[in-house]
């Protein structure tokens, strides 16, 4: 199976090609191409995964792409526990989202285009996961970035969507550029882009790995520098602070996109990369790169959770939640919780996708995103309600759902390795439970309020006409449950949110730890004498308590209305607008980078128009002036000389004319005088 793993990204790629050229013709049947491709990939992927579960050795295939002296560029793929379990997750969750999209996107004029881009995305993501060289990884990375851009701006006629897709692309580009520099630094240092070669070299240390770079007045170890540069990519793609600003706006895209790309997979790519390149981070002096990762993650988790508390858009709350949970994952990896962070990645994929899809179902029913305009929907959308609840409990970390096990792992590692991080993450867990409960309360409980103005259609009548469809009519009746094609995946994901966590139960693994800890091992830990902390019941109970406390508080405020939320809002004063406006970070970026960039552009344009064009015009002007001077010269000097010759001749002629008097006696006189002169002269000589 593993030998065929290279086909896994190719099925979705073929689906993209087919849909790109023949999608419009296929019409309603377009999704089947995509789903079929995903099914094939799932088959192969799960086959390889199960092989790995059964204990098969990792399979590596590589080829040299280019050679330059002693340096080589290689490509290839690796099937090992990490890559196989991630592939399994992507194909399963992705497949379910595809099925859901069949119902959600029905009636959209660009139905086929949607599935084409989704397929391309999956191809890129799977490539990135299976790659064993930074080069191939980068290719996949860039593809998923492109697809994110395309899918955020899927409703391209909406200006807000256009702005959002640009924001996403440009912000992640900042991170991508840093990552590229990091990869180049690695290539320069080690002469290869192959994971294995680089990680071995870093592990062994030695002179190339302990090189030092002088930056300003500081001496930074090159290993740390390259690791942190490479970390730049994940900071962007996984929405870590300070490059998190694009994720909330990415909610402009259709809900399945939010589920797949901005919850389960693409944003997870950053975390995956950190996990994949763990040696790069681990083998820095005092694991300092990992410390940076941990703190960036922790900060992100806390700030995002705070901001989630103040949002009214259901998808925005979930977006900030995603950012926060990604921070959790990074923090987990950073505090030497290799398996913990990656485990949370896998569980989060399930329940976050579930939450987004369920939110999509809600939005589909009530045609608004604003939770203040919802309420009491548990009566109208029962399946949606119960599956959303499952996802909610998983996210909040309530036993026995998946999130409890994975989040608790991270807290455990943090408690043992970095208590400060543990404290902050616990606070974040409390906030997580709080804002999610608020969300559930507003959406599903109470009385239905209904939207003030329903969301306008993203497409124009021309778009529908071109696709041969009629613009949909929306009745203003009571909200109703979504079709089975949408609720089916919801149920499946809900089951997953419960079951997937079980691989993290202590005792499932051979040495007493959990199975997942056994499956996802980092060899460096054993060498360094780092042991995974054993399960601690007190700690687990404490985290459960924190979660329940959050839910309780939310129930009091939002459910029972014991303390009206308005009073709290007034009591916290400026804190509420501060959080609601995303801590003004977006505004800051807008002022500094966007306006700054535009000012710079205007300045350069001024320069171009006045200085550069001025110079050009000057040259032209000088030429004109010179030619005028030349003409003057020609007229007065050259022509003057010519005229002078004529004038002189005429003058001489006029001077000599009087000699011709016509009188013979004058002539004789002259002749006689001449004779006299000659005689005189000849006498003089003699």
């Amino acid at each position, binding site marked *: 199976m593993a030998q065929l793993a290279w086909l896994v990204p190719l099925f979705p790629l073929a689906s993209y090609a087919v849909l790109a050229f023949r999608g419009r013709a296929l019409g309603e049947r377009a999704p089947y191409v995509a789903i079929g491709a995903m099914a094939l990939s799932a088959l192969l992927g799960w086959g390889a995964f199960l092989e790995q579960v059964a204990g098969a050795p990792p399979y590596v295939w590589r080829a040299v792409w280019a050679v330059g002296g002693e340096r080589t560029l290689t490509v290839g793929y690796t099937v090992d526990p990490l890559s196989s379990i991630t592939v399994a997750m992507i194909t399963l969750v992705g497949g379910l989202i595809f099925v859901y999209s069949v119902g959600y996107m029905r009636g959209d004029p660009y139905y086929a285009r949607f599935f084409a881009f989704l397929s391309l995305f999956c191809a890129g993501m799977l490539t990135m996961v299976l790659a064993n060289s930074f080069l191939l990884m980068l290719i996949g990375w860039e593809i998923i970035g492109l697809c994110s851009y395309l899918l955020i701006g899927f409703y391209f006629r909406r200006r807000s969507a256009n702005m959002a897709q640009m924001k996403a692309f440009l912000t992640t580009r900042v991170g991508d550029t840093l990552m590229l520099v990091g990869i180049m630094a690695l290539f320069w240092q080690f002469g290869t882009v192959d994971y294995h070669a680089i990680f071995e070299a870093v592990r062994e240390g030695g002179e190339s790995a302990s090189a030092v770079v002088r930056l300003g007045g500081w001496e930074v170890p090159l290993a740390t520098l390259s690791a942190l540069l490479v970390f730049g990519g994940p900071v962007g793609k996984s929405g870590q602070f300070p490059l998190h600003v694009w994720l909330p706006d990415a909610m402009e895209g259709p809900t399945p996109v939010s589920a797949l790309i901005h919850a389960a997979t693409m944003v997870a790519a950053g975390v995956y990369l950190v996990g994949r390149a763990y040696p790069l981070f681990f083998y820095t002096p005092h694991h300092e790169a990992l410390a940076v990762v941990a703190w960036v993650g922790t900060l992100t988790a806390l700030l995002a959770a705070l901001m989630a508390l103040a949002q009214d858009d259901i998808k925005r709350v979930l977006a900030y939640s995603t950012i926060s949970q990604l921070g959790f994952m990074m923090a987990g990896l950073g505090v030497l919780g290799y398996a913990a962070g990656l485990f949370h990645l896998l569980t989060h994929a399930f329940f976050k996708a579930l939450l987004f899809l369920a939110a999509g179902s809600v939005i589909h029913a009530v045609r608004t995103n604003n939770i203040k305009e919802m309420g009491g929907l548990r009566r109208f959308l029962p399946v949606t309600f119960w599956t959303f609840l499952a996802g909610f409990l998983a996210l909040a970390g309530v036993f026995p759902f998946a999130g409890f096990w994975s989040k608790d792992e991270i807290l455990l590692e943090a408690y043992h390795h970095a208590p400060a991080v543990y404290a902050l993450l616990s606070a974040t867990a409390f906030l997580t439970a709080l804002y999610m409960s608020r969300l559930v309360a507003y959406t599903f409980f109470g009385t239905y309020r209904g939207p003030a103005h329903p969301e306008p259609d993203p497409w124009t009548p021309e778009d529908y006409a071109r696709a041969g469809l009629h613009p949909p009519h929306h009745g203003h009746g009571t909200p109703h449950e979504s079709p089975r094609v949408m609720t089916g995946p919801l149920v499946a994901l809900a089951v997953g949110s419960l079951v997937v966590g079980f691989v993290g139960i202590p005792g499932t693994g051979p040495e007493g730890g959990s199975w997942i800890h056994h499956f996802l091992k980092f060899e460096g830990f054993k060498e360094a004498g780092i042991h995974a902390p054993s399960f601690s019941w007190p700690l687990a109970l404490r985290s459960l308590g924190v979660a329940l406390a959050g839910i309780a508080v939310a129930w009091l405020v939002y459910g029972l209305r014991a303390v009206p939320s308005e009073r709290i809002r007034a009591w916290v004063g400026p804190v509420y607008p501060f959080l609601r406006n995303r801590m003004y970070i977006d505004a800051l970026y807008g002022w500094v980078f966007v306006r700054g960039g535009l000012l710079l552009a205007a300045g350069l344009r001024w320069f171009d128009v006045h200085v550069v064009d001025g110079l050009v015009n000057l040259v032209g002007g000088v030429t004109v002036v010179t030619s005028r001077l030349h003409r003057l010269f020609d007229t007065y000097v050259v022509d003057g000389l010519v005229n002078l010759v004529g004038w002189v001749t005429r003058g001489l002629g006029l001077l000599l004319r009087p000699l011709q008097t016509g009188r013979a006696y004058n002539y004789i006189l002259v002749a006689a005088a001449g004779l006299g002169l000659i005689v005189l002269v000849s*006498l003089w000589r003699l």
Partner: protein
Amino acid sequence: MNAEALAFYALAAMVLVGGFLVVQSRNLVHAAISLVPTLLGVAGLYVLLNAEFVTAIQILIYVGAITVLILFVILLTEGATGLRVRQRNEQVPLALLVCGTLVVLFLVVLLRVPWGPPTGPMPAYNPGAVGRSFLIPYVLAFEVTSLVILASLVGAIVVARREG
């Protein structure tokens, strides 16, 4: 002073005074008449130079024919009536200068020349010698000159003829 010198100076005076009068007389007729003593003086000088034949011819032709011819023409062209007419033109000062210079130069030249003795004796019989010269060494000049006379005769008649 011997006789020759006396004769010479007298004749020279005649020539030069006469010449002066020729070129200076207001009255054309006076000028023409003054030609006579001038030319006669020249003839006299020829005698002193032992050129008897030339003397004769001089008197015959110059004094006799040419002077008369000039007088005739003066009368025919009413130049005799021009007493009130200015006879000198505007070139007088310059002409004086030029002529004066030339004369001075000639005198300078001829005074510097070392005149030696003559190369041989003068022939005793002048006309014979002239005749022999014309007919033997210079016969061509002789013939051509006669042609010139012919041509000028014809030409003069043609030119001076009244029209019609």
